[in-house]
């Protein structure tokens, strides 16, 4: 189930090539989240292709992403 989200300003994502997941860096706080979640970038937004439970929730809780499913 694919999902498109928008990243908050200052959040830098990195998806690992072996599909083991991705890491997100917040320039403002210096915090890092390491998650079992894979994505690709499409027209400036994150298209999440694979994730385990709670991964997206963790990002949402911190306000690092905004879901595009209004």
């Amino acid at each position, binding site marked *: 189930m694919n999902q498109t989200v928008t990243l908050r300003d200052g959040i830098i994502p990195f998806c690992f090539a072996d599909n083991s997941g991705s890491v997100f860096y917040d320039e*403002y706080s210096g915090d890092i989240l390491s998650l079992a979640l894979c994505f690709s970038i499409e027209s400036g937004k994150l298209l999440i292709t694979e994730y385990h439970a709670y991964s997206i929730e963790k990002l949402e809780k911190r306000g690092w992403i905004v879901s595009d499913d209004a």
Partner: protein
Amino acid sequence: MIFSADFLHGIWLKQAQLSSLSNREWEALVLLLRSEMLLARFAYWYENESEGFPAFVQAHLGNAKTLATRQAKQVEIEARMLVPLCSQFSQHILFLKGAAYTLLGGQLAKGRVYSDIDILVDKDALLSIEKRLGFKGWIAKPVNNYDEAYYRKWMHEIPPLIHSNRGTVLDIHHNIVPPVSGKAPPSAILTEHTMQSQGGFETLSAAALVLHSSVHLFFNEDQDKGYRDLIDIWLLIQRFDSQEFWTELVRLTDCVGFKTDVILALYFVSQFFDVGVPKALQPNTLPKAKWWLLKKIYSKTVLPSHPYMQCKYQGIAITLAWARGHWCKMPIPILLYHFLVKGSRKFIEKLFGDHVFKNSQSGS
């Protein structure tokens, strides 16, 4: 090797013969500048000439610039987060000292490093702000219980707050000098002398910043980083030099006080960096004997107190200045009590070998 005061001033006036320095002398100069928190300033000051410096010096300057840039970025982020938080309780949120310089940008900002962010808010908003910030991860910096009482009871201030995650230190003031001294200017006056930075942040006006810097330089007990503060004042004058600026400064000292401190600061700035000062703020407006004593004490203390600086009798001068700083801030009975408790605590710690991590990189 020992550097003379003239050599040091010559660096900022771009008259010093840096090309004739030996490697050993360069090593010492880097150490001296770093100790005075002036290394990053120096790096930007000589941005175009540093290619001719020895490689190891360039490496240090590179590091200093990286750290300064990182800090400036962090301060802007913090400022953007703090203003909406504090405005719920205080009509004014004014940035002071180092943070103000960073937000004002330009040469004043480049390479200016400091350890705390200083802001001025309404007095009755202090406790509410402290509480609100507490929810956002800001906690009072751990101090021993005597110092905490000193802050809250006698200085009517809250201790510095440190962010539990980011480590940023925030110093929230409601005046520029402790009210218990009886010398604190009415805060209403201070809030009339403000200006806006390009980024939309409120700081004290240029004249008020000069006043505050002068007060901080001579009134406070820490005669530390005085030389750096003089450079700040010089840069403020250079940038905001105008009839209005000087008129405002004279008017401020007339109604708020601290004229002596401003005259002293301007005297040193004019001596070191060849800056013109209007008659109304020159030393001959002060009683001769008073001026003679002040000049004697402070001529030594405004220079870096570093083993590489050529300056005798600095130890005594610093003690005298320290005592005056304390004296100016508090009435005598309170002062004695403060000395007694603080003094004996230090003695006990020394005697039983307890050692605290020394951090001489403090001061904003």
